């Protein structure tokens, strides 16, 4: 198989009007560029400031997570899923647990479903909060916005630590439920954090949403059409910012999401500004879900008493389970051959698939806007490279 070579010497352009010779410039952004959120590289060809070609280069963080999980028992790779999208470990656990539950036909008790929704939506809050902080940091508002966002994220991480023992690598879900029940007073503390959260959102919106420089930098930049979004299977807030009404919490009605009243915010332009704003709106909807879930959570067991974790062998077959993670559609595809390890274990990474259209969004913009576009896609390299 021949490998398509990337052009090494950029072609010389036609002489400019004043007779000066110009040349395309090929630069490598990353893998150590601070705005790439990890080790991600883009080969960018520039005509002056304008991007004429952009090829992403993946794999700097590749450790073949799928192969490792195939050599591990079903439960054994649960802690490893934390390390995929290391900002939102709980939703990774949830997607994996959901796929295994589909594969083996396991029921989840009521209280565990509520705990899943509460922790999952808290994860969405802290992911979106840190994302908007990072995005503003990337665009040059050094310091304050990111620190404000991290201050709120810290409260939620404290809740995770009290519940699961770990701030980021939570390892919280089990097949058929959750690992531990809430400690005394946890729900009250969580309710306090959730009640105070809209105040942060108001403060943040007052701080920057109407900011002229922000609007100048983001409006009309990196426009993603809904047709291209559907064609490229763009999911999550990025698709909804383009007006694609597809939220897996509504479509699949997995877990108990049908019980909560929340709306799906949609953007109309699909530019960086819409992708930025949709995170605020989603956080407001998540606060609604959290308030209802914490009001209604029943007492009861947190794991299916019939579920036996030791020697867990699902019957042969396969299952694809997916959830609406903060980044988009996170899916797990499992094939069982009846043994203790999965025969095939596949992660459907929303971060990677949302990068399919990166070049389309970046063509023709200035090189400084590439940073804003990449930041608004919301990637985590642990999941892109697996």
């Amino acid at each position, binding site marked *: *198989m021949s*490998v*398509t070579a990337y052009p090494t010497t950029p072609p010389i352009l036609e002489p400019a009007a004043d007779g000066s010779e110009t040349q395309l410039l090929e630069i490598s952004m990353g893998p150590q560029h601070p705005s790439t959120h990890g080790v991600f590289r883009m080969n960018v060809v520039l005509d002056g400031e304008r991007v004429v070609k952009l090829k992403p280069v*993946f*794999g700097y963080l*590749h450790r*073949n997570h*799928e*192969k490792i999980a195939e050599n591990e028992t079903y439960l054994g790779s649960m802690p490893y899923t934390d390390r995929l999208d290391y900002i939102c470990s709980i939703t990774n656990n949830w997607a994996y647990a959901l796929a295994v539950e*589909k*594969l*083996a*036909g396991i029921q989840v008790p009521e209280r565990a479903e509520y705990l899943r929704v509460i922790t999952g939506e808290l994860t969405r809050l802290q992911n979106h909060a840190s994302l908007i902080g990072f995005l503003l940091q990337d665009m040059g508002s050094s310091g304050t916005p990111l620190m404000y966002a991290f201050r709120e994220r810290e409260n939620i991480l404290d809740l995770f630590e009290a519940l699961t023992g770990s701030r980021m690598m939570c390892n919280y879900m089990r097949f058929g439920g959750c690992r531990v029940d809430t400690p005394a007073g946890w729900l009250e503390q969580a309710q306090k954090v959730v009640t105070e959260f809209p105040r942060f959102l108001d403060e943040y919106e007052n701080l920057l949403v109407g900011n002229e420089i922000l609007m100048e930098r983001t409006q009309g930049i990196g426009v993603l059409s809904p047709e*291209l979004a*559907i*064609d*490229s*299977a*763009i*999911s999550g807030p990025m698709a909804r910012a383009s007006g*694609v009404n*597809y939220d897996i919490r509504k*479509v699949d009605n997995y877990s108990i999401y049908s019980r909560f009243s929340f709306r799906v915010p949609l953007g109309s332009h699909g530019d960086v500004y819409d992708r930025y704003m949709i995170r605020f709106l989603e956080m407001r909807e998540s606060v609604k879900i959290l308030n209802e879930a914490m009001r209604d959570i029943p007492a009861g067991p947190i794991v299916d008493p019939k579920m036996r974790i030791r020697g867990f062998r*699902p*019957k*042969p*077959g*396969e*299952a*694809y*389970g*997916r959830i609406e993670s903060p980044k988009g*559609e996170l*899916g797990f*595809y499992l*094939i*069982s051959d009846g043994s203790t390890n999965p025969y*095939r274990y*596949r992660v*459907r990474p929303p971060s*990677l*698939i949302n*990068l*399919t*259209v990166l070049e389309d969004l970046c063509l023709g913009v200035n090189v400084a806007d590439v940073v804003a576009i990449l930041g608004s896609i919301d990637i985590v390299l642990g999941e892109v*490279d*697996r």
Partner: protein
Amino acid sequence: MDLETIKSTLEANVPDCRLEVIVNPSPSGQHSLLVDAEHAFAVASFLRSSAGFNYCSNVTGIDWPAKELSEKVKVKKIVDGVETEIDEVSKTMIPGCLEVVYHLFSMSEKIGPLPLRMRTQDRAEGVHLPSLTPVWRSAELQEREVFDLFGVVFDGHPDLRRLLMWDEFEDHPMRRDYVNPDDYEYEPTAHDDVLQRANQHRSTVGER
């Protein structure tokens, strides 16, 4: 729309296509559709344009190495002039293949997943399959990943390069029979048998 309806619609609209429903015995009940490589592109285009499956979420490969099925069969044989029944083990080889699965969803009908499968002829030479990237753009990076990790060559892919491994890498790590190369650096300071194996690959040319 259930799978049998989709199958009969496809058979009516894509002439000569060979479809097979693969039954999934697990409680998930996600049965899949196996399509032959020659008609896969036409079938995919029809699913996209006329059956509403506009959202191709997940593309992945599966490696099925050749395996030997041994069955005990009772055979009547004449031993020393007396007819007796003896157990004989009959062995059949099931040839291996690489399989590619596309998980399709319909956004408007809100149905899915429909797993669409294709199989290669074998695992060595006949690893060519048609690329479905022209039908669903979302397959672009994922087919590159399958090419990289499984070694399926997608004909018609616009930019088929390795995705996660580096371009000079030769093997396909997600295959079941993949072994780490023995000069693989397990640790920065190799010692004992790892050092010995690594030394076998070390060039003596130009050594000072």
